[in-house]
């Protein structure tokens, strides 16, 4: 396949396997982490907005900043 004789060769990268695969792997991890993190932030923001709205709705019924026993 391609520039390599066998799949095993491909995995070994002529002795550079550690460096090549580690760099590709770490990159993949970083990029995926970035994507997930961005997604999570988005969810967080949406969650906060909903929360805010719920609180507002709740407070319309019982406006209360006073202490009680």
């Amino acid at each position, binding site marked *: 396949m391609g520039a390599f004789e066998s799949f095993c060769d491909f995995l070994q990268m002529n002795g550079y396997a550690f460096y090549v695969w580690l760099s590709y792997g770490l990159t993949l991890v970083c990029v995926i982490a970035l994507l997930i993190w961005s997604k999570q932030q988005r969810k967080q923001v949406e969650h906060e907005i909903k929360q805010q709205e719920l*609180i507002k709705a*709740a407070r319309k019924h019982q406006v*209360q*900043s*006073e*202490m*009680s*026993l």
Partner: protein
Amino acid sequence: MLSANQLTCIRNQRILFDDLSFKLEPSQLLYLTGPNGAGKTTLLRSLVGLQQLHQGEVQLSGVPIADCSPDILYIGHKAAVNEWLSAKQNLQHWLNLTDQVADCESLLMKVGLSGLMDIPVKFLSAGQKRRVALVKMWVSNAKLWVLDEPFTSIDIKGVEVLNTLFERHKAAGGYVIVTSHQTLPDQIVDQRLELSYRF
């Protein structure tokens, strides 16, 4: 019975009070008054054992005060509230510390913080911060309450609620010691102690 015997405190070569003695029976409220700088805070702190007295000793039901910490609730000028944590977290930590179990949300509701429980205390107004500190009075099962100007920044309705809270605590057989520059209603005050400003 809470008894203080011949308390003397000297700060900066100034005698703040000396030979001060008083006794407080259960279900009584001691209202400590005095002009600014008279030594009220100093007295309260030494009562609970946070400050060394020059002389004298304090006993709660015959036990030296240093040995009955679970029976004391002290709320001072400093609120013991971490500004970066939310009100709920702050309360939860205090509950853990004093080994109590309670529903934080409903408690904080009671001091009027509904909807503000999850934001850092830093963003609350002065009075709301103070409420986070005062919420301890709603759960505490300490017998002796020592409160240093609890009404600071609290609005008028809040002050009323606090007063009824004192009454309830008294009815349950507790002791209350309060200082404040706002007058307490006569019917809840059992003893008055006036410190004078000495130089």
